[in-house]
């Protein structure tokens, strides 16, 4: 019996880690598009994030991470019913200068999760060639995200230096 359990684990664990590594592989590239999806409630941005992966569920799982990444580093343009926003971190070198911090921040189960929630029933999936393009509306708690960046010393508070 013990032998059978060990055998099963030996087969399943590599598969799980392969799935994870596929997610990370897709996410490390940060291949996504961000657009505004409405004016969010106070302290939040409502964004639609389109993520790409060979697996639809992988793309969907990465949407929260991509949404937070986009709000921090990319910003997004205006839509017909909403106003675009500049990236929270306007310094173009912020990501590389704080690479260690963001590696941990965006790790699986990392702190990024606290700042994004998926709006239910908004998923759209399209197959383009060999991969999937999955769009989800995400609410990003930008005020809390900004405070976290200020606390980490990555973003200056308003009036910093005075």
């Amino acid at each position, binding site marked *: 019996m013990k032998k059978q359990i060990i055998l099963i684990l030996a087969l399943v664990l590599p598969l799980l880690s392969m799935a994870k590594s596929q997610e990370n592989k897709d996410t490390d590239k940060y291949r996504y598009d961000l657009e505004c999806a409405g*004016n969010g409630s*106070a302290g939040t941005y409502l964004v639609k994030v389109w993520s790409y992966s060979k697996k639809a569920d992988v793309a969907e799982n990465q949407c929260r991470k991509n949404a937070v990444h986009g709000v921090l580093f990319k910003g997004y343009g205006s839509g017909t019913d*909403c*106003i675009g926003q*500049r990236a929270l971190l*306007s310094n173009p070198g912020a990501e590389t200068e704080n690479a260690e911090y963001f590696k941990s921040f965006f790790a699986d189960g990392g702190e990024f999760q606290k700042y994004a929630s998926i709006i239910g029933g908004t998923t759209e999936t399209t197959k383009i060639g060999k991969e999937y393009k999955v769009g989800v509306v995400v609410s990003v708690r930008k005020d809390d995200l900004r405070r976290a960046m200020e606390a980490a010393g990555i973003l200056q*508070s*308003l*009036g*910093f230096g005075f």
Partner: protein
Amino acid sequence: MKKYLFFLLSALSLSLMGYSQAMKPELMVFPSENWCINNGYYTEVTNMDYVQKVPDYRAALQGSMDLKMAIAKINDLFAQRGFPLSDLEQTLKNIEQERAEDMLTLSKNGNELSESPLDMISRVAKADIILELSWEAIENGPKTVLTYVLEAKDAFTGKSLGGPAGPLPGSMSASLPELLNEAIVANMDEFQLRIQDHFNDMQTNGREIRLDIKVFANNEAGIDLETEYGDEELNEIIQRWMVQNTVNRRFTARDASENHIYYTQVRIPLFDDYGAPMSANDFAKKLQKALKKEPFKIPAKVTPKGLGRAVIILGEK
């Protein structure tokens, strides 16, 4: 003894740090002149036979609940970022107090305008940046479309720092206060980033002012800007002083003759040697003192023109 000296120096440096860090730039929200006049909140002043419409900020605050709500919302969003704004209503009360004390009024010799309400409020509030707010709701079929403008201006130079402007997505159900609230919230992050950019520029390059240097005609000292002291003319001595006392040697001499030099885009330190905020007047007085010393001994009169401009007239006081 060393311990006491160390303790004393530490306490002194900490208190100085606290003092300098406490001096944030002052920001204040105003309804724009255009909004006040379009909504009937103005008074008419005759200036040299010309009737001028002057915003009446008190009447605007008393008459428009939407304006009060909008200013309160902007104040609240800045306070959330740890940057409370100066309050327009309280500043107006302080001005009334000042008027009662020294009879400072809009009019001089009857109707002549001596200081605009905006300049007066900026001066009393010591605002570094003014935020001018205006909006207009237009009915477009079943929809109400709001055009919203919030423009930041450097109170010293009058230069615009930009800000959100333009029509917002219309709504068939939202009321004007709801649309206004939404416009303020949706545009605030971008707006605050612009203001932070300006703060960063001020910290790197100093505060921008304008300095005019003139000479009294037939003055008692018998000097003009071409009077020589050793090998140098007075205008060269002043130029050297400007190089030594401006931030990163940044200034432009726009026009110069034996009777005047106009310096624009003069970048001065934010604070003086004692950590107090420096205005154009303070900077001009520093030059006045330098010229009063040996070997020049030039008397001079300094006249402030708002926060960001000063005139030094050489030859007499």
